[in-house]
């Protein structure tokens, strides 16, 4: 076992980890942050996407021990204890950008990165940026609508009723 010390969602955390523990499992099982979903576990599906020092990363393709002294943000950072939905989450809700919701945490964290690094992008760039997040329900149209709404305030095809 090895001692790691990192910041998760703004809070300093220290823990003992087996070096082979994946960051995804450490977040879910060690810190009970089960918002990070684990799908394919080999880097294809994108459900486990989190931010490491602000940049998106597959938490299933990272050892927890690699996150030592880093800052990790998960989907739980977006809406803290009943403080209401983050604008990106609200846009996903308004535009029906999810159905079963399994892929949503990873998509949201990818969009947080996009909003921080390229907020003025169009639909093609949104699709390119989200190409690493697989959704088997929506067909992606409403996800792109939601991201466009979140980034640019574009009404898209939101159903506000």
């Amino acid at each position, binding site marked *: 076992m*090895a001692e790691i010390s990192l910041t998760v969602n703004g809070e300093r955390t220290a823990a003992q980890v*087996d*070096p*082979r523990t*994946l960051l995804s*499992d450490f977040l879910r099982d060690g810190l009970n942050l089960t918002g990070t979903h684990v799908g394919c*576990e*080999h*880097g294809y599906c*994108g459900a486990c*996407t989190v931010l*490491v020092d602000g*940049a*998106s*990363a*597959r938490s*299933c*393709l*990272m*050892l927890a*021990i*690699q996150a030592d002294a880093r800052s990790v943000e998960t989907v739980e950072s977006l809406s803290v204890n009943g403080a209401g939905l983050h604008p990106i989450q609200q846009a996903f809700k308004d535009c029906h950008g999810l159905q079963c919701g399994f892929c949503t945490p990873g998509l949201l964290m*990818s969009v947080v*990165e996009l909003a921080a690094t390229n907020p003025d992008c169009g639909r093609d760039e949104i699709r*390119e*940026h989200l*190409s*690493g997040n697989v959704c088997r329900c929506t067909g992606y149209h409403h996800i792109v609508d939601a991201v466009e709404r979140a980034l640019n305030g574009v009404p898209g095809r939101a159903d506000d009723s």
Partner: protein
Amino acid sequence: MKPPRFAYHAPRTLPELLETFNETADEAVVLAGGQSLLPMLNLRLAAPSHVIDLGRVPGLDSIASTNGSVEVGAMVTHYRMETDAVVAASVPLARRAAGYVGYRAIRNRGTVGGSVAHADPAAEWPIVLLALDGEVGLASVRGWRSIAAEDFFESVYTTAKRPDEIVTSLRLSTRCAHRWGFSEFQRRTGDFATVAVAVACAVEAGEICEARVAIAGVADRPMRCREAEAVLVGGSATAAADAAEAASDSVDPISDIHGSSAFRKRLVHAETLRAVRQAFSANEAGARDG
């Protein structure tokens, strides 16, 4: 699945890294960005006794422009290659190729050194190295050496790197960076290439005096296509179609689940045509005054 048990090492200096690797080399793997290694560990395709993490070793992530070349540290990520100003100015072909690697989350963590050491025959960096007359820098406890890209890639996941050596840097020549093109066919965005083509040309007095064409996805290693290069040297804009024809004729591609040999031959034609047209077009990003 989850990775098997291993002993984890995070050396803090290059000498410590090389010493650790030398002591464990037969049973150790090197962890760079982990975007190929972690899937292999998770799927239990690899079961090393030791994992040596390069992530805490300083000095492996610099990008420096020297006389006639750009030196890239092995731990430089694909995303940095996509966004770095020195790369954009000196070897724009490398910047373009970086954008084809995986997805953003993969590019954020995956490294050029890891990709080159892994030597997937459909990867982008090996053909960029071939097109830009690149060299691979290798270090071990025995010392440092550099090997030409053409001699480095031997077969699928197999390179001329000796068991105790670690890839520490890549050197890309700017001699052929004047005119360049890069084109790739992927089934889905972020997949490995079915076929990818990199073209780099040196221009003197308005004429192409040297051309390098490198192709991924047609053999067990990245290939240079000298037939297409011969067409381009001294050639005019109409040479694009001839070069594409020559490239397609010269390859005898593999067939696999991603595409038949005949399909890949057609792709070599199409992607070579696109890459050469980029290199020739004055209006495209592919042309830089030289």
